[in-house]
Each structure stands twice: as C-alpha cells, then as structure tokens.
C-alpha cells in the first residue's frame, strides 16, 4: 500500500467517516462560513480523501480555516460529515513533529488583554499537538 493510501486510510480511521457515502450535493460547501477563505472547499475534501491525494490536503490552507462550527456535519444529508475529515487531516499534520499551524513565537503578538482563556486553549488544541 502506498503511503498516500495509508494516510487516506488513517484519515478515514481517525474521522470515522466513510467518504464513499458522499453523493456530491455540495450542501457542506453551501453551509460553510469559511468557504471563501478555503483553497480546497469542504465538498472537495471528500474527493481528495477518496482519491488519496493527502499531500495536497496536508498543504491546504483550509485546514487552518475550518472553524469546527459543525454546520456541514449538521446538514450533511448522507452523514459524511466533511468537518470530521478536515479535522482528521489536521490531526495528521499536527501529529507530525514540527508541523503546526501555530508557532509558539507567533503567540505573544496575537495576544490581547481581553482574550479569553478558552480561545487560547482551543487554538492550541486545533493548531498544535
């Protein structure tokens, strides 16, 4: 099995999502509030995993734009839940050492005094291992 295929399998395993259930209706992309910021769109995530094109996915900006708002999860008529795939791809990246969407040195300049703990905690969970 090629490593891309392995990674695709890993994504399916982490997410618990079966991309074959997708009927390509686009409701996820129609629901996504971050759609315009994404280079790979939510409905395309499914195809990328199906096709095993994990490299492109891992390098996609979209990983760091997804808000985990679960709108796509809620509305997906086929229970594919693209949000879970995106998160799994993000996991795949952050679990590799040194790969992260947020470097510690970036943080101080992002902080502001009113910023709630919750924001930092969440961002850390999302961006880093």
């Amino acid at each position, binding site marked *: 099995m090629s490593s891309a295929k392995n990674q695709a399998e890993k994504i399916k*395993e*982490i*997410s*618990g999502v079966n991309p074959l259930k997708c009927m390509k209706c686009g409701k996820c992309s129609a629901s996504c*509030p*971050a759609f315009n*910021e994404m280079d790979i769109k939510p409905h395309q995530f499914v195809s990328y995993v199906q096709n095993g094109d994990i490299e492109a996915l891992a390098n996609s900006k979209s990983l*760091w*734009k997804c*808000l*985990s*708002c*679960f*709108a796509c*999860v*809620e509305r997906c008529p086929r229970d594919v839940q693209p*949000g*879970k795939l995106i*998160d*799994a791809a993000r*996991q795949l990246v952050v679990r590799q050492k040194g790969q992260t*969407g*947020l470097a510690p040195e*970036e943080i101080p300049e*992002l902080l*502001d005094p*009113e*910023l*709630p*703990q*919750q*924001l*930092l*905690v*969440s*961002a*850390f*969970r*999302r961006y880093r291992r």
Partner: protein
Amino acid sequence: MKYSYYPGCTLRTKAKDLDAYARASAKALGFELEEIENWQCCGGVYPLGTDEIATKLSSVRALNEAKEKGQDLVTLCSACHHVIKRVNNDMKNNEDIRTRANNYMQLEQPYAGETNVLHFLEVLRDKVGFDQLKEKVVNPLTGKKIGAYYGCLLLRPGKVLGFDNPENPTIIEDFIRAIGATPVVYPYRNECCGGYISLKEKEMAKNMCDKIKDSAAGFGAEMLITACPLCMYNLNKSSETELPVYYFTELLAEALGVKEDAE
C-alpha cells in the same frame, strides 16, 4: 436541588461575571451549583479524532465525579458544554472509547456515560421551568428587544447535543420572554462567530461577526445575549457594529433582582 457544576477555565478568569451571575441566580431560583473538586480544563474543543483518548479524560473525570455524587452535571460555557456532552455521548455509545478511557482511568466503577449533562439554560427550561422562572422575576426587562446569539457549540451536532432544534432554536428566546423582554429572531443566530480563528484570522472573524450583528440589528435587536465567553469576545472585539453583548446570566440576575449580590 443540588447540581454538580463545572465552571471551566474562562469562568475563573475573563468570564467571572458569567459565573457569578449564574450562581446568584441559581440561589434565587432555589437550586445550588456545587462546584466539582479538582476539575480540569476541558480543552476548549471536542477532539473529533476517534482515536484520541487523552484529550477526553478531563471531561470523563468531571462526569465521573458527578456520577459518584449522583448529581446531574451543569455547565455554563458553551464550549465546556459541547465538549463534555460529546465525551459523555462517546462514553455511553462508543464501546471502543469507553473501554480505552476506563482502562486508562482505573476507576472503582467503570464510567459508561451515566451522568446527565445539562447546560444552565437546560436547567432553567427543563428543571426550573420558564413559567416558574417568570414568576420569580422581580425586575422584568419589559420593552427590551433582545437577540439571542446561540453560536455553534450549543446546538451542533443536534443529534448528540439534543439541546434544541439546531436550525431554529427557541430556548434562549423563551428565556428572554421569561425575564420579561422581547426576543428578536434573526437568521444568523446560529452562525459561527469565528471561534478560535480570531487568534490568527482577524479579518475572517470580523466578517462573520459583522454579519451576525447586522442581521440582529436589522431585525430590531437592541442587544445580544450569549452563553459563551469566546462568542462574547469575538462579537465585541471583532465587529464594529454598535450592539452591546451580554451574558444571559447577567440579564437573568438583573431580572431576579440579585445582580448586586453577584458583584
């Protein structure tokens, strides 16, 4: 009536108000929030990966403590609520996660999702009852037009959280009515505020919050209320639209006439 209570990190720091008003209101309504001991941060976001256990354990600890006390577990922050309810759901329905978490925790009695997780709003709706609440109101906020801002975490995924209709919720509107004010229904009330993305993507968060506030104001809201410190932060910080945002507990305390007690 006593409930186990999980405040969460932000309610200890930036969102002390949310917590203080809730406690004061609870007292006025005749129930008690008993903070569980040694709670740990829930992590802020629910770990979607089915293979992750470590990140779910803090929730399991809190859940198990409530179980041992035989109490329902009440949360206030939307994020904590989301995380803990979903972990609880996993412990109930996902055999793999349950086994692995229990193996790790080595509890006397394995935990299998027995605890009932309630958001403070659910306590008001399902335990106290909005009719009862209405009777206890001493300062009805008559004439105030308030938009409920739900955000995402309280509602979705609807099948797991079972909090309210995820696309057309009514719980906060009913709450607003109970405290004597007028709810303003607007379509963006369950759209995302940007969440943690505001740390790095200010512009994105701004766009989203503008949409929310513009929509609410357009339908005549004079203020918004929320249950989430992060939503509060984003709505206040990221948008330029003038529309005050309050924690729902603040208005509750005010209506019950216990706002001073909390301060």
